[in-house]
């Protein structure tokens, strides 16, 4: 089924963006899961591989400066492709915000969500063309 969740955390492990697909969890379950995977992923060093198995998920993670992008996927998902997808997400955010940083995402949380929504829906990839992804968001900015 592909992507189960996308979580963005900072170096301190605070969640900055989170979207879950398919299986809904209660707020406390989600908090617990985030805490566990953050602890596992942040403890790893750079030369270790970018995949961590946790419960029935596989977490593919990638670090950009002080931000960690964690993507939970099914066991039969292509891990390398997900790494590439994370990069695409970061590039898209970059193009929109211009050198995106943690604060941009916090203060424009809804926009970050809109961008992610244009890219992933119900765990499937919607679009990989950055211009197409950003078109509706830019249109909206212009209108307001």
């Amino acid at each position, binding site marked *: 089924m592909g992507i189960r969740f996308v979580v963005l955390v900072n170096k301190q492990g605070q969640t900055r963006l989170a979207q879950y697909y398919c299986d809904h969890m209660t707020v406390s379950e989600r908090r617990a899961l985030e805490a566990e995977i953050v602890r596992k992923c942040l403890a790893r060093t750079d030369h270790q*591989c970018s995949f961590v198995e946790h419960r029935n998920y596989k977490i593919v993670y990638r670090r950009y400066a002080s931000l960690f992008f964690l993507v939970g996927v099914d066991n039969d998902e292509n891990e390398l492709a997900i790494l590439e997808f994370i990069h695409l997400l970061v590039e898209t955010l970059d193009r929109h915000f211009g050198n995106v940083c943690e604060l941009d995402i*916090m203060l424009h949380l*809804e926009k970050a969500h809109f961008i992610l929504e244009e890219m992933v829906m119900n765990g499937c990839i*919607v679009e990989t063309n950055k211009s197409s992804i950003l078109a509706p968001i830019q249109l909206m900015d212009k209108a307001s």
Partner: protein
Amino acid sequence: MNPFSSGTRLRDMIRAIRACKTAAEERAVVRKECAAIRAAISENDQDYRHRNLAKLMFIHMLGYPTHFGQMECLKLIASAGFPEKRIGYLGLMLLLDERQEVLMLVTNSLKQDLNHSNQYIVGLALCALGNICSAEMARDLAPEVERLLHGRDPNIKKKAALCSIRIIRKVPDLAENFMGPAASLLKEKHHGVLIAGVQLCTDLCKANTDALEYLRKNCTEGLVRILKDVSNSPYAPEYDIAGITDPFLHIRVLRLMRMLGQEDADSSEYMNDILAQVATKTESNKNVGNAILYECVETIMGIEATSGLRVLAINILGRFLSNRDNNIRYVALNMLMKAITVDAQAVQRHRTTILECVKDSDASIRKRALELVFLLVNDGNVKPLAKELIDYLEVSDQEFKGDLTAKICSIVEKFSQEKLWYIDQMFKVLSLAGNYVKDDVWHALIVVISNAPDLQGYSVRSLYRALQTSYEQESLVRVAVWCIGEYGEMLVNNVGVLEVEEPMTVTESDAVDAVEVALKRHSSDMTTRAMSLIALLKLSSRFTPTSERIKEIVTQHKGSVALELQQRSIEFNSIIQRHQNIKSSLVERMPVLDEAAYLGKRAGSSQPTLSAEKSSKPTTSAASLKLPNGVAKPPAAPLVDLLDLSSDDAPVLPSAPNDFLNDLLGIGLPNSSSSGAAPSTTTDLLMDLLSIGTSPAQNGPSDSNVVPSSAKAAESKPAPVTAPVMDLLDGLPSNASPPRDENLVYPTITAFESSTLKIAFSFEKQPEKPQVTLISATFTNLSSSTLTNFIFQAAVPKFVQLHLDPASSSTLPANGNGTITQSLRVTNTQHGQKPLAMRVRMAYKFNDEDKLEQGQISNFPPGL
């Protein structure tokens, strides 16, 4: 007011939250904000609705409850403007889930928006539906989505396709409606539509076989064309990633090809060429190229590919495996797991590299590699592989040792061809990681040792040697202590020395030292200590010169706070002091444990705790003889486990009465039953000794004239107990247990009695079904007015099954002038282990008033 430059207040809130130094401060800020938002909601504040929702999303992300904002989402969705709708739908997806009732209210808005003239609003509705729709909504809105699939706008089409995935996942019956549209999506040019279409097709294939057949027939060609186009396409800036055009589309197409080509030679043949092209031409110096190669290899392995293509795929994996990038190595290991079913030989060639990966510093890689090695082991390579793994065990990380130990043990058990090798490997594992060895594993080891008379000497000496360096490994200590107790003289006299052994001299007191250390170590747990006490008792008869010293050690535990140790100590002390004449026969070596029975039992139950297994064994009737002298309490559990080893191996006879005794006697004196000789007292003592741990307070020895051959006849009467045996029974209540009732007649009991009602239970049991009891309940009205609408209900613990037959009437005449009868059938699945218990509830009308009475029945006669 611009709704998307979220206003200063959102910024202020985020700042305030970030400024918090403690979690408590943060909670306070959030609580204040939530209160303000609630107030705004109840005032139906229009202007700040979107901003409040944006705040709520932030609060939700931090992990606080935000359910009170759900209705706000619905209001925003219902409003006319795009920005309001946008944030409303976002809130809907984040704050709600499909289980919530509120969701039903949104169906109508969704339907309107799906038919909206503005494509962006349609897109929003599709996106929301695709993320959260429930089965009911899927049924309601499927026609709309299907219609949108035929539309013109690619942005809508792609979202409609993904939305369809959710719909068919929720309602698989709808799959056939989407087959045609899905196939036609693959003819599009727009990449977004293509990738969504391919994903929809993949899901349709999973959902039903008709769809799979349909797509196989209609789409294989189109897929090959898409893949050809995209892999040969000239530079396309918007889709380019490191020189490859749209790798995501590549990967999804390859994945769908795998579904279509699986077990289908025709379509597989059609794909061969393009797969070969992708596998050879894709650049592998970047991650993205490798992602495609990885998917391509998986597809080649999954379909009916030509052998040449398979060789190509295996070679790519070989290259991956030797790559220095850990990510690539990880996926290679992952892939080899799947390849092993296709071409085991090819995977075996990489064995050395895979073994290296087990020792990697990266936990993810280690885990994958270990699982792969486990699959690679066969009769031919088990020895070198096991050696490698055991060598690595010594240096591996603490957190990895558990997994590693379990895998090694299972490999060694599964593939061992000779006992000596098995024993050697197990000893190594025990001394390196004994604390990680599961109980059933070392139990099995003991069974094997007991069955290998020519290796017992070797075993006890090896264990003695290992013990000197590895006292901290609990399981090793237990096995060693058991062996020293049983085969101590082989240790001292060097019996059965193998050629490979180094000569060694151990004195009797050295052996006692070893056991004493195990007994007195602080880290030793109850089981180990109890085992040590038994070993000492055994040694005291074998090494007569040390007997005095052993007596002292045993005596020290008379004051142990652990009841089990204290009791053992007192009993053993009494044996040593007063029964020198029978001691030697009493502590004879354990009879050979039945290997087949133990292994069968172990395979039958995956639970490692033997006590749990015991409870599932219906033939043990010992518990019916249970006496309440406290030994059966939970603290004794490890002991039960421990001596279980000795009793479980006993051949299980058909469940005749007293079969427990039979079992024990059967192994205790295998020959005596044929000779028919009168039993010696020692037999009884042995029984008693064994029963201390297993069947608490089973009063076996009181039947001092139990003859093995007579046990079948079940004539054992409680007879006067001979004096020396009585000593052993110090501390046990002297009343003999009631003999098991052969005719299965049980007294009638008063199960319940109140001022108005009396219930009597009488019991009936068929001898061939000891678990099943037929209870007939008789209800009598003690009051002076008639009870009407009488209903009797009963509840039983989980291990009991209850069947209630209808009652004879629902009216109960006053003053006991008539009764209602009702029969119950209970099946006690733990018959002999746990007594029956029941809760009852009686509802009736008394003077036109509803009454309810309840009670618990715990006075069932024993043995039910």
